[in-house]
């Protein structure tokens, strides 16, 4: 089994547990959700250390974030439209029909003027990226596999100290 597949299985278990968005209707359509999912996975992809945003279920977090803020929902919906329009212009296909490489090229285009966005796509990226980071780092994968956090032992005797590296202490 590939390492990546192993991650996927672990992720499936991890994502299934939280009660995120239970009993709440998603605000994005399945097509929009697929675009957000792919965008987040391109921003934080899987690597040999930890699974990426797709496996961590970041698109669910994005949906939750949009459901709490109608303005954000509208802005992201417009952004997805603009993205599709732009990819049709560039590759004559909608964003989700493009290959992963083409999609990454699209994101590169969006990320050009990060910090001082000048068009719809760049604004979309600037607004989406912090939410993707938050969604990833608040996920169980983000905490436990990405950051390798080991804290919060209810067994107080399990505490070994925050730093037990002799080389740092000399």
């Amino acid at each position, binding site marked *: 089994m590939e390492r990546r597949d192993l991650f996927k299985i672990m992720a499936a278990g991890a994502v299934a547990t939280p009660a995120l968005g239970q009993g709440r209707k998603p605000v994005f359509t399945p097509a929009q959700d697929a675009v957000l999912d792919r965008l987040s996975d391109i921003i934080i992809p899987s690597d040999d250390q930890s699974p990426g945003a797709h496996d961590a279920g970041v698109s669910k977090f994005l949906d939750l974030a949009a459901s709490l803020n109608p303005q954000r929902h509208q802005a992201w919906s417009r952004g997805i439209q603009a993205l599709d329009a732009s990819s049709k212009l560039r590759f004559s296909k909608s964003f989700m029909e493009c290959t992963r490489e083409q999609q990454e090229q699209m994101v590169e285009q969006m990320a050009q003027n990060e910090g001082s966005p000048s068009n719809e796509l760049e604004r979309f990226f600037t607004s989406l990226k912090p939410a993707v980071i938050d969604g990833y780092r*608040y996920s169980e994968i983000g905490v436990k596999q990405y950051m390798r956090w*080991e804290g919060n032992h209810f067994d107080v005797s399990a505490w070994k100290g925050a730093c037990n590296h002799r080389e740092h202490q000399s």
Partner: protein
Amino acid sequence: MSKHKNRELSRENHTNPRGPETGGDPITSPLARWASVLLALAIALPNALPKDRQPITLPYIPAIISPVLDAQKPENKKNCAKPKRLRVNSTTYAFGNLRKTRLKPKKTRLKPTKTRLNPAKIPRLRRHQPRSSPQRRETLAMTMTVTGNHMNSRATLIPCLALMYTFDVCVVGSGPGGGIAAYALAKAGLKTGLLEAGPPLRAGIDYGRHGMPWEVQEQLLTGQWARNSAFGLREQNHFTGVGDRPDHGWLKAVGGRSLCWAGHSLRFGPKDYREWPIAYEEMAPYYSKAERFMGVYGNKDGLWNMPDGEFLKPIGMRCGEWLLWRGVQRMKAQGAKMEFVQQRKAMLTEDHPSGRARCHYCGQCSGCCVDAKYTSANTPIPMGIRTGNLTLLSDAMMTRILTDAGKRRVTGVEFTRASGAVDRVNCRALVLACNSIETPRQLLLNGLANSSGQVGRNLTSHFGLNVQGYFPELRNRGALDDECAGAYQSLLTGLYWDKPSPKFQGTYQVQCTAGWALMDLPVRGIKGFGKSFKRELREKSAGQARMNMQGSLLISSKKFVDLDATRKDRFGLALPRIQLFYEDSDIAMAQDMVEKCEDIIRAGKGEVIASPGKVTADKLFIDYNHWVGTVRMGKDPKTSVLDRFGRSHDIPNLFVGDASVFPAYPEKNPTLSNIALSWRMAEHLAELAKKGELS
């Protein structure tokens, strides 16, 4: 049981009839009217009326019965349709087996005791009542007040006996200073009343719930998670700020800001006491006593101006903090005067006589759910109540200080309950421990103890800014247990102790933290996307270290508290106005700190990733929890408000037990010294009472 009853009865003998101004509760049924008349007669007749007190006017309904009357209104009837049993929830003060009671709130079923009022008419605490509804809060306050002992949750509900409060000493404010004063006074055998403006809160239930980020995503997104910390419940819009963005934190709850404090417990040193009317040697035994009582962990570092205390075992530092320590060692080797030590906090790392749980290092300390952190609500107040001498009146906001005609002595205080009912307490001595903004405000409002004109002056606090570094050698480390026991686990200190700086007055310390934060993003603004971005975000988060300056603000005529002439609070009292303007000395101190911290990060082979650079007043932020100095102590009644024990020069039975007594402010955190001083003040007060100098 009988002992308890005796206590209640003995209080009855001390009761005083109240003035006509305190009536005014609606009387909704003839039964209640008759009951109140009978009650008042039963209490008033056996006591000969003292000549100096106003005669009682009938009919008169005590504030404490108002929930009963409310319950008889038709719209509230359904709440008490068949109340056969009274439920009292007393989880906050259950001692000894904290963990168990926290996780599963204990419901004690009690049979109604024989009372002159039908206890069936007292509204039950119902689950569906919103937590903040006045009725619920009043009921909670009532059960807490009249039981007089919620340690063992045996409620003897005799509300009629709680009509009037007469104490030897009344302490106003249940924060770190007020809590310890109330405990020390009760332990010394004085009948003590503790007035608290806020409600009792239960750790782990009303605030401080555990949560992993993926379980509380919605709360994180909406900002509700901040309310999980007790400090999220703080007062808003309760002062007027003038100048450089002053701020003030005020938590109205039993325990006050000790519920949300970070626990930093540093002794002031001999140098710090040079400007005080007290010497360090005089304070040392009180520091030891306080540390033993609270449970403070720390490392014995042997620093002359931050003396070692009686510590529980230390918990160490994080990787990044050790690298800052390394930087400091290198700078010391080149002749720099500074020390880098482990932080000392009032949290239990070992078993402790208080019976509180040990810390499990979840890092959610501003609302400790297991009470491993010392708060007034989990140690001194329950222990004081256990002595049988302490009565806690929660949801009771002091709205007036009562004095004799010449304002020479305090005779009591008037307070307003959550329901709006006004009540009063008579006392032989009054201890104010409201906080460094509220105490001077109350004195100014009442025109008391201010012959020196110093009330509200000499305002100071801590101020600071942040410098962030990154150590590439930590980039591959896992986040391990970076939460520890709260953010700052280390402290850069010892700066300018021996020789003051020529550029600025005062001293500063730098609190340091490092590594990854569970509920916050320590590093922001990394450009790009994809694998390289992902790696960089991880490495910077794992290897970052943040240094937070805490400097003592220069005391000057530009910083003070007075009353706002236009804005009033909901009790009709003028709000305080806080004036803050940074001086050149303050800015020079911050500039010095920025340069020192950048040097330390580089000496530890790190790189500076965030720094204010050139400091200006708008980059500084004030520590809104550390205000002190507004009711200073001193030897000369012309230049100070209080004597060296915290007793007013003008009014011999008025004392102050909070941090506003500080005449000068070192860089160290104020709470431990506040507790030690308040304890000393309370023992002095008890001694005076024993000598008969109070009445």
